[in-house]
Each structure stands twice: as structure tokens, then as C-alpha cells.
């Protein structure tokens, strides 16, 4: 039940939507849902990896806005400058991930504190640099990421490709097995000769790089530097992973199930919006779904 819980819940939600609002199955709303899911999904991929090593990354929304500022400043509205913008953003992302990882492993700072501090630092540095007004312009070429490839949004295809790649790494390679081992019992992993710190640092770097990917997709989506870009993605990505069965304590949970969690969270958000529910009620429903998921998993965990 634990393993298939999220898929059953997703199926149930899809069925409820079919009864309550069948128009959600028209191509247009479906396209929008998949596109929004892919934006959150890129962040959730990184967040899931970090949670598998018993971590947490609260700096993701800072990395997203930073990426959009860099893309606009370096890109300056010209498609030919997308690549330098992309490389510099990835460079910043890697540095932030490295700093998070070093703080957590070498200085033993709890992940919550380290990444929250990093979020504040990124925002401060960015405000100081831009003086509140980010100049530059997002290159139009990035809008391609939000257009369609056949019936699917380009960003959705990218998200699926990254999910497949990371799932392969996690389930087939020794790297993946060691990530799970570190999350289950860090000390045991260390004693069995796994370079734990290096793995944890690598996971935080990968997470930040994936979030830079989300930042690029979102920059193309909005077309402007929006200071609220990615707001809420930190908690939504954690919620999606938890709904997908990823344990806060680490070492337990499936990447693919977490991505089903993303679809579930996003489909639910869109459905509530299409129903025209008040935002307050939307938050209550979303909160209940996350709490319900955690409660069910812990119940199932105890029984097994």
C-alpha cells in the first residue's frame, strides 16, 4: 500500500475530476497542468534527492530568482547570449549547492538552518547587486521551453527526461544505492567505507543545478524578472516529495513516486482553481492532502 499509495491517490483524483469537472480533460487545461507540473517537478527532483540523504533544501526559491536575474542581465534580451547566461547560472547554482553541502557536512549545520541561511544570503546579495531593480531582459528564445512538442509542453519533456536519467542513476548505479544507504544510516554507511560527505555535497550540488533548470524554464515562462518567481516552490516541492512517500528521515522513498506526487499536487491545485474555489479553501484542501498523506504513510509504515 505504501509503495502504490501515491499512484492510487492520483488515479482517484483523476477519477473525481472526471466526475466533477470533465472539461479538465480537454487538451488545453491538460497542457497547462503538465507545464506547471514540470516547473515544480524540476525542483522536486532536486528536493527528493536531498531528502533521500535526510536533508532539506529551503534555498530553492532564492536560486530560482537568482537564475532569472542572471539570465536577464547576461542574456540582455539576445538569444545569442542564452548560453553564457545558462553557464553562469549553472556556475552560481553549483557554488550554492557546494556551500550548502559543505556547511551541512563539514560544519555540521542542520540542513534546515544552512539552506535557510543560504536563502537569506542569496536574496541579500541579489538586492545589493541589483539595487532592487534588475536590469536586462529575458531572451525571447527561452519562450521555446514553454511551447509544445507535439501535444506535450517542451518543459514537460525535459522534466520526464531528467526524471528518467536520475531514476536510472538512483536505481541502477552504485551512486544511487549509496545515496539510499547514507539516508538510512549515515554512520553505518561511513563505517562501510562510503565517502559520505562527498556524496552529500554532490547531492546538494545536483539539487541546485536542477533548480537552476527550473529557474530557466520559469524565466522563459514569465518573460520578466519577477521577484516572486518560484515563491512557494520550496514548500510545494517538499510537499510533493512527502505525498510521493519520501521520508523526512531519509533513505526511504521513490523518485518516480515523488514525481507522481508532483502531478498530484499540481492536478489538485489546477482542479481547485477550475472549480473556482476560494484561495483560503484551496490552501486548506492542499494542507489536508499533505497531512493525510503523511499520516497514511506513517500508519502503513507501522503496520509493515
Amino acid at each position, binding site marked *: 500500500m505504501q509503495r502504490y499509495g501515491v499512484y492510487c491517490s492520483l488515479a482517484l483524483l483523476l477519477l473525481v475530476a472526471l466526475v466533477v469537472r470533465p*472539461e479538465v480533460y480537454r487538451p*488545453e*487545461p491538460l497542457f497547462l497542468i503538465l507545464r506547471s507540473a514540470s516547473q515544480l517537478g524540476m525542483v522536486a527532483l532536486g528536493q527528493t534527492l536531498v531528502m533521500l540523504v535526510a536533508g532539506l533544501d529551503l534555498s530553492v526559491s532564492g536560486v530560482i530568482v537568482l537564475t532569472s536575474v542572471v539570465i536577464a542581465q547576461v542574456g540582455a534580451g539576445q538569444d545569442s547570449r542564452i548560453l553564457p547566461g545558462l553557464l553562469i547560472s549553472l556556475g552560481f547554482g553549483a557554488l550554492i549547492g557546494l556551500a550548502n553541502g559543505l556547511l551541512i557536512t563539514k560544519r555540521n549545520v542542520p540542513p534546515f538552518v544552512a539552506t535557510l541561511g543560504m536563502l537569506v544570503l542569496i536574496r541579500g546579495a541579489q538586492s545589493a547587486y541589483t539595487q532592487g*531593480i534588475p536590469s536586462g531582459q529575458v531572451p525571447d528564445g527561452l519562450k521555446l521551453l514553454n511551447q509544445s512538442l507535439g501535444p506535450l509542453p517542451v518543459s514537460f519533456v525535459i522534466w520526464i527526461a531528467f526524471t528518467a536519467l536520475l531514476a536510472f542513476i538512483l536505481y541502477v548505479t552504485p551512486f544511487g544505492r549509496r545515496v539510499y544507504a547514507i539516508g538510512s544510516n549515515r554512520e553505518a554507511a561511513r563505517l562501510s567505507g562510503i565517502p559520505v560527505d562527498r556524496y552529500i555535497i554532490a547531492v546538494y550540488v545536483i539539487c541546485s543545478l536542477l533548480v537552476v533548470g527550473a529557474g530557466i524554464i520559469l524565466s522563459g515562462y*514569465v518573460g520578466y524578472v519577477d*521577484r516572486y518567481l*518560484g515563491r512557494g516552490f520550496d514548500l510545494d516541492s517538499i510537499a510533493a516529495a512527502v505525498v510521493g512517500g519520501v521520508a523526512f528521515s531519509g533513505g526511504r522513498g521513490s523518485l518516480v513516486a515523488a514525481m507522481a506526487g508532483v502531478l498530484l499536487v499540481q492536478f489538485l491545485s489546477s482542479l481547485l482553481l477550475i472549480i473556482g474555489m476560494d484561495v483560503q479553501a484551496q490552501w486548506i484542501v492542499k494542507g489536508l492532502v499533505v497531512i493525510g498523506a503523511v499520516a497514511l504513510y506513517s500508519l502503513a509504515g507501522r503496520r509493515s
Partner: protein
Amino acid sequence: MQRKHNLSSLRRVLSILGEAKPVKRTAVLSALMVMLSGAAVRAEDAAQKFTQAEVDASPYLKSVVARQGTMADTSKFRKKGPYKIALAAQGPTNSWAALFDQEARHHVDQLGKDKVSELLYASADGSADKQVPEVEDLLSQNPDALILVPMGRAALAASVDRAAAQGVPVVLCASGVDGDSYVTEVGTNLYGLGVRMANWLSDQLGGSGNILVMDGIPGVDTAEIAKAGAATVWRNKPGIKILDEQYGQWSTSEAKKVAEQWIAKYGKSIQGIWSDGGQMSQGIIEAFQEAKLPVPPIASADYSNGLLRQVKDGHITFSAGQYPNAMVILCIDTALKILDGESVPRFIDFRNAMEKTQDVNTSNMDAFFNPKWSDDVFPPIFLPDSKMVELKYMKQ
């Protein structure tokens, strides 16, 4: 009362003009222009009347209307200059607030050291928690007046009380606080703004049509007040049908996501939009343009240069209210008036006292749009072009 206030201000400005040193004349002349243009927009403002039922139903509106008609006796604050003015600002957390600070510094420079000897500045970084101790620090430096951009209505009430107890006159700038111990508040009637934007949209639709409403952030009083103002209009216009009402969190990306779902659901039946913020209006317009649908008339609570660019390029019918960061100039001038012992209204609407603060729409937008400014600039700007270029807010 308002008229009396403006006439006495005008007399004062004229008397200063007679004795002003040449180097200060430009500043005084610009102040005179501000006063005169205030007179020009007063007729428009006077047209916005509220029924007693409306006033009774909204504590905010009741307070604003009452304070606009009450003069504060400031004789006890009269003292000789030059003055030490404290400014507890939001801090450069966004473009609006960044330019607010620049306008303040530039205006103080223009006034000269013989008028304002020192500007004590504190940035709250948008946080009430940070602002409370900062105000304490500012007060410990014994300023002659405190200009406060409150980051929380309840949180800063005690700080204002403390300043009053210390004998420091407080000018609230851009937002209000609970309590009554400040001298005056400079801002605008947000309820009235909601009403005007709703009436404009209704007029565009000839009194009937399907509209969508996007509010700011739930529970934030500035968003809820404008929403309540618009709601009174919708109640009295049976022909206006609200298809849906959602919060866009004052975010372009959030607004675009919501608007896309609206378009998917209602498509071409959407005839008008009421949006409580320029950055959300930008996201809504993007969604319509990407869906290759004509953008319906859009009423926006405020606007940025980027929104004007979009509206101009897309030939979109729109109207927007103003919330200029340059209102800090009026806040500083009001603090100086108080220190001069001149009585001031307890609520000063910048629409009555500053030039270029009337509502912007498709027909007059050219006076507000500047193609050389970056998209994130909130007009009107009173900084000289050379300063804007220096600050990298403007292309050469």
C-alpha cells in the same frame, strides 16, 4: 479644509520664492508646480463621492474621510532649522522601494543642508520585526521628525506612540498604523482606487459583461481595502457578472498561471479584467497574448513602465491607478511643514498634492511611459535623467 490647506501652502511657496537663493529656485519652482497641478486634479477627486452607507460599512473609508477633513495643530512642533529628519523606510527589497529611497535622498540634496542638515535612514528589508528596533535606534538619535513607512499596521503602533511620547512628530508614508498618535499620513484612498478602477471597467463594458477579478495577497490590508472598494461597485451593477475571483499574490508568474486556467475555462467569454496590481496585470496580458486571444479591457490598481510597454505594443485598453514612490517627496515636505508649525490635514492624499498622479489610461499613457526606463520602474519619477542613468535605471 483641503482647499484652505493648499492655498496657505501656495502662499508660503510664493513667499519663499521671493527670497530663495538662485540655487534653490528649481526646487521651489517644482514644489510650486506640484501645488498647481494639485489644484488641477482636485476637481477629478471631488467627483469621487461616497454614500454615507459606504462610509459606515468600511472602517478604513470612515477613517480616511474623517482625517481628510481634520487639521492637525502642529504649533508645539515648531522649531528652527536646519532639521535632522529620520526616515524608517522599507529598504530596497524591490524596485518600488529602491526608487523610493533614491527620490528621498535626491530631494533632501535639493533642499540643501541649511534646510535638512541630516537624513537618518534605516532599511527594514520589508520586515516589521526588523523595523521595530530600528525605529528605536532612530529615536535614540533625537531626530526632529520621523517619516515612517510602516511594515505592519499593528506591529509599528507602539513605535509611533513612543515617538509621540518623545515629542517627535511622525509622518506615516505610503501606509498606515493602528492608533492615533501620529501627526498625519501621506498616501491615497485605496478604497476609492478600487471603486474608480471598477467603475472604469464597468463603463468600458457599457454596464454589462463577464469579468474576472484578481486580488493581491489574502489578508494584506492594502489588497483587501481595494478589493472591498471594487466589490461595492460590483454589487450595484447587476449587469456585471464576475466569472471568477482569485488572488494572484502580486506575482507575475502566479497571475499568469491563474489567467491561463481562466482562459482555458472561459475563453472568449471574458470581457474585462480587474487586477489589483501592475505586476499581475503583466502576467494576465502575457497569458492572453500567448493564447492568441485579444486582451480584454484591463483595470489595474497600479502599473510599472513594463506594463505601459506591453499595453502600448499590444494596443490594449487599460486604466491604472497610481502609487508613486515619489510620494516620499511629499512626506518630507510635510515633515518640514510640521516643523514650521504649519497645520496639516491628518490624511494627505497625494492625488491632491502631487503632479502626474492622476489615473493613467490608454489616452494619456504617453505622458507616463518612458521607453528608456527599465521595465521595473514605477512612474512617475521626479529624479533627473542623469541620475536615472547613473543609477542604471535608464538607458542613455
